[in-house]
């Protein structure tokens, strides 16, 4: 693979995702409205009942909105990852995925490029959300907005890889509704996005264990620390390893001689 060819192709894949995104403005609005409703309605309603003690990376008592804002960043990226997965199943059914897969580049590169494009779109959504949140008085240190970027890239890739993995095993678009019920909601609610781990422990030991092993929890913690200019090494390694596993299985799933393709056929009867 020549590096010039690879960089032109990567640029093209990201541009296409951007063009699609700009054409589908309602997708952008929906992606923004969802976390804002949670922020303005849900978080405001629970402000008085859910006080947050001083826990790292926060150095003082914080309002519930401040805590949940990072969880909502994770939510944007989680939904975006699943949206990418949905669009891949759609592309496969509609045939446009073929254009990508028959390109003269290694399949792992093409799939990684598609992931990067999806992560790029989710990062734009996140910064728009943070801009609105800024005017709602949820403000992080200036530097935090910069240190957040690498964390957003890694989390975007990890959640995108999870979506890609799922898309490689979903045969039809109709099956996607199951993803909502069995992946997105459990992942989101069983995480530190809405409440810290110690709060979950108070109510259920089992839930606490599940939440602490949930890759989405670690992704949210990575984002939380990064937004306040700090580095959470455990969350970073956990997210990185999760990404590697999801990506490995997704590439295997899209390999024409292994994974999903073989389920359809491949050898002599």
């Amino acid at each position, binding site marked *: *693979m*020549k590096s*010039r*060819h*690879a960089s*032109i*192709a990567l*640029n*093209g*894949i990201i*541009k*296409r995702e951007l*063009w*699609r995104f700009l*054409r*589908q403005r309602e997708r952008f609005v929906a992606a923004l409205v969802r976390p804002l409703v949670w922020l303005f309605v849900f978080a405001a309603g629970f402000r008085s009942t859910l006080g947050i003690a001083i826990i790292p990376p926060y150095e003082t008592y914080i309002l519930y909105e401040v805590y949940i804002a990072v969880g909502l960043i994770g939510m944007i990226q989680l939904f975006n990852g699943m949206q990418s997965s949905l669009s891949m199943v759609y592309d496969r059914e*509609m*045939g*446009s995925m*073929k*254009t*990508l*897969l*028959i*390109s*003269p*580049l*290694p*399949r792992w590169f*093409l799939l990684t490029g598609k992931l990067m494009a999806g992560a790029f779109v989710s990062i734009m959504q996140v910064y728009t959300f943070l801009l609105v949140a800024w005017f709602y008085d949820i403000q992080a240190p200036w530097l935090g907005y910069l240190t957040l970027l690498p964390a957003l890239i890694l989390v975007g890739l990890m959640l995108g890889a999870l979506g890609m993995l799922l898309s490689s095993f979903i045969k039809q678009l109709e099956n996607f509704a199951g993803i909502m019920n069995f992946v997105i909601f459990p992942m989101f609610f069983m995480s530190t996005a809405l409440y810290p781990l110690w709060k979950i422990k108070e109510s259920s030991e089992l839930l606490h264990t599940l939440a602490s092993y949930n890759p989405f929890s670690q992704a949210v913690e990575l984002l939380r620390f990064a937004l306040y200019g700090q580095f959470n090494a455990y969350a970073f390694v956990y997210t990185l390893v999760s990404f590697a596993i999801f990506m490995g299985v997704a590439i295997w799933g899209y*390999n*024409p*001689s292994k994974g999903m*393709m073989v389920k*359809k*056929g*491949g*050898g*002599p*009867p």
Partner: protein
Amino acid sequence: MSQTGGFSLQVEALSYAYDEKRALNNVNFSLQPKDCTILLGPNGAGKTTLFSLITHLYSAREGRVLINGYDVKKQPSLALANLGVVFQQTTLDLDLSVLQNLKYHASLHGMGRKQTVARIQQELERQGMYERRNEQVKLLNGGHRRRVEIARALLHQPSILLLDEPTVGLDMPSRKGIVEHVHSLCKDDNLSVLWATHLFDEAYETDQLVVLHAGEVKANGSVKEVCEQQSANDIAAAFQQLTAKKAS
């Protein structure tokens, strides 16, 4: 890279099965430069499966496909670089414009900006679609979408063009236009074409013919040779005899 023997495309002892159902059985044929080969077969003959194997969407455990001497399974990138493909179902992104679709394809083939602009203009003008380059694909009719797909498939100047039933669902004038255009490409552009169809009138007398039925090659040669072998007056009669033999 193996010896090409002057062939653009070689399909050797290719077999493929979906679970218990065998879709292709020991398929052999080859294409030479400038060959326009019609892959004729009824629905369910295995044409689309064959295309999926040539384009490396599927991978066969038995047999091999060589494109300009490169094994699709072992050197997919080198092999696929020589291939232009028009699938049966449109693979254009309907939300994007004609230009955006073509630019995306050019980038996947590593084409630089200047080359992309020049080639897009050249191919779209040839298809009479340059004026409509900024229109969203979903606003184009079936015939125009097909023209854009052919322009896209030729953008990176491949040596082989694969078309999987490209005229399905098109009206007669659009069909005729595409058939004529693709045949002229073999002559003028030094291109090898493999055209899958079940419509006899899409084959010219000068074409090569591969008749595929129930996953097996029933005949392979020039249109004239196949008709002579079957003592038939035309392709339709020869085809009927070849496919009837299997059924009996």
